[in-house]
C-alpha cells in the first residue's frame, strides 16, 4: 500500500478532511436544487476519507470513522428503503414523497422530506461501499 508517512500529507489531510466532509454535506443538502446530491456528495466524502486512508492506515481510519463501512452502508440501505414506508401507512404508494416544513430557532424554515432522507441513505451507501472496497483492498496488501 502506498503509505506516505510524510508529515505534510498527514497535516494536510487532517486539515482537509473536515473541510471536505463539510463540502460533501453541502453538496448533499443543496442537491435537490443545484448540481450535487447523494451520489456526488457521497463520492466526495468517500474520496476524502480514502485520502486519509492513504495518508495514514486502515486501523487509524477505522478509528477515525468509529464505524465499519458495512454498518454505514447497511444503515444507508435501511434508511433509503424505510424512507418510502411512511407513505404506505397514509394509503399512498411506496416511496411517495412527504414534506414537513419545520421552523428552527436559528436556521429558520427547513424543509424536511422523505426524498432528503432517501438522499442521505444514498450518501451513506456510497460512502460505505466505496470505503469498504478501498479498505478491503488496502488491507489485502
Amino acid at each position, binding site marked *: 500500500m502506498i503509505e506516505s508517512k510524510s508529515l505534510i500529507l498527514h497535516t494536510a489531510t487532517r486539515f482537509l478532511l473536515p473541510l471536505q466532509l463539510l463540502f460533501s454535506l453541502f453538496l448533499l443538502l443543496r442537491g435537490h436544487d443545484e448540481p450535487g446530491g447523494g*451520489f456526488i456528495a457521497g463520492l466526495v466524502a468517500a474520496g476524502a476519507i480514502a485520502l486519509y486512508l492513504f495518508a495514514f492506515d486502515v486501523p487509524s481510519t477505522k478509528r477515525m470513522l468509529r464505524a465499519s463501512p458495512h454498518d454505514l452502508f447497511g444503515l444507508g*440501505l435501511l434508511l433509503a428503503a424505510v424512507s418510502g414506508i411512511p407513505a404506505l401507512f397514509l394509503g399512498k404508494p411506496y416511496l411517495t414523497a412527504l414534506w414537513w416544513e419545520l421552523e428552527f430557532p436559528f436556521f429558520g424554515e427547513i424543509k424536511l422530506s422523505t426524498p*432528503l432522507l432517501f438522499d442521505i441513505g444514498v450518501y451513506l451507501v456510497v460512502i460505505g461501499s466505496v470505503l469498504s472496497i478501498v479498505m*478491503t*483492498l488496502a488491507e489485502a496488501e
Partner: protein
Amino acid sequence: MLLAVLSGFILAIAAPWFFKAFGDRTGWVLAILPAALAVYFGSYIPEVMTGETVVQEVPWIPSLDIELTFFLDGFSLLFAMLITVIGTLVVIYGGGYLKGDKDIPRFYVFILAFMASMLGLVLSDSLISLFVFWELTSITSFMLIGYYHDNAKYRKCAHQSMMVTVGGGLAMMAGLILLMMIVSDPAGAGLQGAEAFSLRAILAVDSGLITGHEFYVPALLLILAGCFTKSAQVPFHFWLPNAMAGPTPVSSYLHSATMVKAGIYLMARLQPGMGGTELWMTLIPIVGATTMFMGMYFALKSTGYKQVLAYSTIMALGVLTMLIGIGTEKAMLAFVAFLLAHAMYKGAFFMIAGIVDHETGTKDLKVLSGLRKKMPITATVAAVVAVSLAGFPPLFGYLGKKMMFETALEAPNVQVYILTLVALTATMGIAVAGLLGVKPFWGEEAETPKPAHEAPLSMLLGPIVLATGSLTFGLAPFFADSALVQAAVTAIWGQETDYYLALWSGFNTAVVMSAVTLVAGLLVYWQWDRVRGVMESLQWLYDHGPEWAYTHGMDRFLPWIAKKQTGIIQNGHLRYYLLTILLTLVTLVGYAFFTRGEITGALSFEVHFYELLVVLVMLTAAFFAASTSSRLGSVAAAGVVGFSVAVVYIFFSAPDLGITQLLVETLTVILLVLVLFRLPEFVSFSTTAARIRDVFVALLVGGMMTALLLATQDVQLYEHDPISHYHIAKSVPEAYGRNIVNVILVDYRTLDTLGEIFVLALAAIGVYAMVKFRKRDERLAAAEASEKEETA
C-alpha cells in the same frame, strides 16, 4: 373404477409396511387386493355381456381437455380380468420366488403400482390419460427389470427397455394429438374439448372422416410407433428378451401377459376408426407377420428357458398384430381368442420357468432333462400348457391357433407373405412347445446345479390355475366364448359377430395346415440340435440387427456427437464465446436493419472546435488503450477516455453527470492502479490473424452502433412530448426541487436509485467476501506455514 385403479397405487405405497407386518406371507396378503378387484370386475360380466358399457366420468385437467374418465366394455373387461387374475397369481408367486430377498418390498411396490397403471390403461377413455398410464407402465417396468440392479448388464437391459418404450411413447403422444386434431377439425367430425380425446367419442365418428383426413397417415404412423415399440414388434423387438433380466414373476406378468399387450390393445381399439385402409391392412400385417416369424425363429435358436419364452412371446405379439392388421370380422374373433389363450399358457410357462430356475439353479435347456420324477406337479402342468402352446386340441390354444389359420387364409392383402410365415412359424412352434414342456421333464435325468425338488404352493398355484383355465376353456369353448370373448369382439368390432368359437368346425384347409405343421414341427424338435447349429452359423447377421443399431446409436454415436458438439461449442475460450455472441448480435440486428431499416437522419456536422478536440482526444485515447502494450499506459488512456466523456457531459448540459463521471472515473483509475501492480505486464498473446479478426468484429459492432444511432436519429414515434417534459414541469410546483436530475433520482424514479444503491452495496459485499474469504483449509495451511517459519 377410479377407486379400483387408485387402490393399487395406494397399496403399492403401503407395501413396505405390509412387509414389516407380514414378512414372508406378505404376498398372500397383498394378493387379496387384485383378487378382490378380479371379483369386482367379474361382477360386471353379466352387464357387459349384454353390450352395456359402464362409464365413470372423472374430470381431471379440463384446462388441457384431459379427463380421467373410465369405461368398461367387453374388451376392457377382458383385459381387466387378465390383469387382476394373473396379478393375483403373480403377487403370490413373487412372494415365493423372491422369498428371503431383502429387496422384496420394492418388488411388491412396483408390481402393485404396475398393476394399477395397467388397469388404468385399459379402462381409460381419454387417450391422454391412457397415455399417462401407458408411460407409468414403462416406468414401473423399468424399476422391475432393474430389480437386480447390482448387475451392470441388467441395469443396461432396464435402460434399454425404458428408452425404447418411452421413445416410442413420445412419438405416440404426437400421434394422439394429431388424432385429436383430426376429429376436432370443424370441417370433419368437429369434436370439442375433452370429447376430442375420448376413445368412445372418436370411435363413434364415421371412420371415413378420420382415414380421409390429411393428417391420417402421420397420426397413424406415430401411434403405431408407440404400439410397435411397446408390443415389441420388429424392428423394436430386441428390448423384450433383454427385459427378462427382471425376476421371473415380472417377466411373466409384464413382459408376457399384460404390458407388452398394451400396444396391441390400443391398435385393436383404434381399428374401427383408423383401420380398413390400404396402409393399415398392408403395413400392420407385414410387421406382425415378420415379428411372428422372427420371434419363433429366435425362440428355436435360443437355449435359455426364459429366452425361448421371451421370443415366443414376441411371436405371439406378432400374431396379434397381424390379426389386427388383417382386420376382418373373423380376424377379430381370432385375435381375442389368441390373446386369451396366450395370456394363459404363456403366463403359466413363465412361472414354470421360474420354478425350474429356482429349484434347479439353471435355465439352460441343453442341460435340463428328466425332472419329472422330482417335480411331478410341475411336469404335469408343463405338459398341459405345452399342448396348449403347440395348439393341440382340446386345449384353448388350439382354438386360438385354428382361428389364426382361418383368418390368414382370408387375409385381403399380402396373403402369400402371411401364409408362408404362418406355416413356418407354426412348424417351429411345435418344436418350441416340445422344448419347453417336454425336454426338461422327460428323458434321462440330468445333473443340475441345485438338487431339484418340487416348488412350494405359492409358486405352483399360478401355473395350475392357468393350466386349468386353458383346459376348461378348450373343452368348453362356449364358456369363454359367451362370457368374455364375444363381448370383447363386439367391443372392438363395433357390432356383434356371427362367428363363435368351436373345437370342431368341419374339415377345412386350416385343419390340414395344422396337421402338416404338426408333423414338420415334430421333425424339427427331433433334430433340434442340428437345426440350431445351422441357425447359429448365421450369427454375424444377428449381431448386426436392430439391437446393434440401437446400441451403437446410444453407446457410441450419441456420446460421440455430444462430445464433439460440446468440444466445439463449449470450448472454454471466453474470446470465442464473446465473438459468437457479438456476431449473433450483428447478424440479427444487421439482417433486420438491411431488410427493413434505413438511415434517414440528416447528417449535419454542426460542431464546435473544442467539442471536436475533446472527442478526438477521447478516440485517440481509446485506440491507444486498445493497442498499447503498456499496462499503465492502457489504464491511463482509459482514464483519459473517462475524463473526456465527463467533459462531453458538461458541454452538453449535464453538470451532475459530468461531476459524477469525473469522480467515478478517478476512483476507478485508483482501483485499477491499486490492483494492477499485482498483475503481470502484458505479454503479446494473440497472433496477427486473430488480431485482424478481432479488429474486424470490433469494427462491425462499432459500425452497427453508429448505424443504429444515425438511423434512429430522426425516428420519433410519439406524438406528444417525451415524458421528461412532465418531470420538468412538475419539478418545482409538486416535487419542490430545482435540480431536475436530482428530483428524478430521489423522487420521480426513486425505485431505480434504490436498486442502484443496492448494487453498490452488493459490490462492496462481493469485494469483501472475495478478498477476505479464505477456505478453512487454506487458512489452516497458511497458519501452519507461518508456524513453521516461526519454529525455523
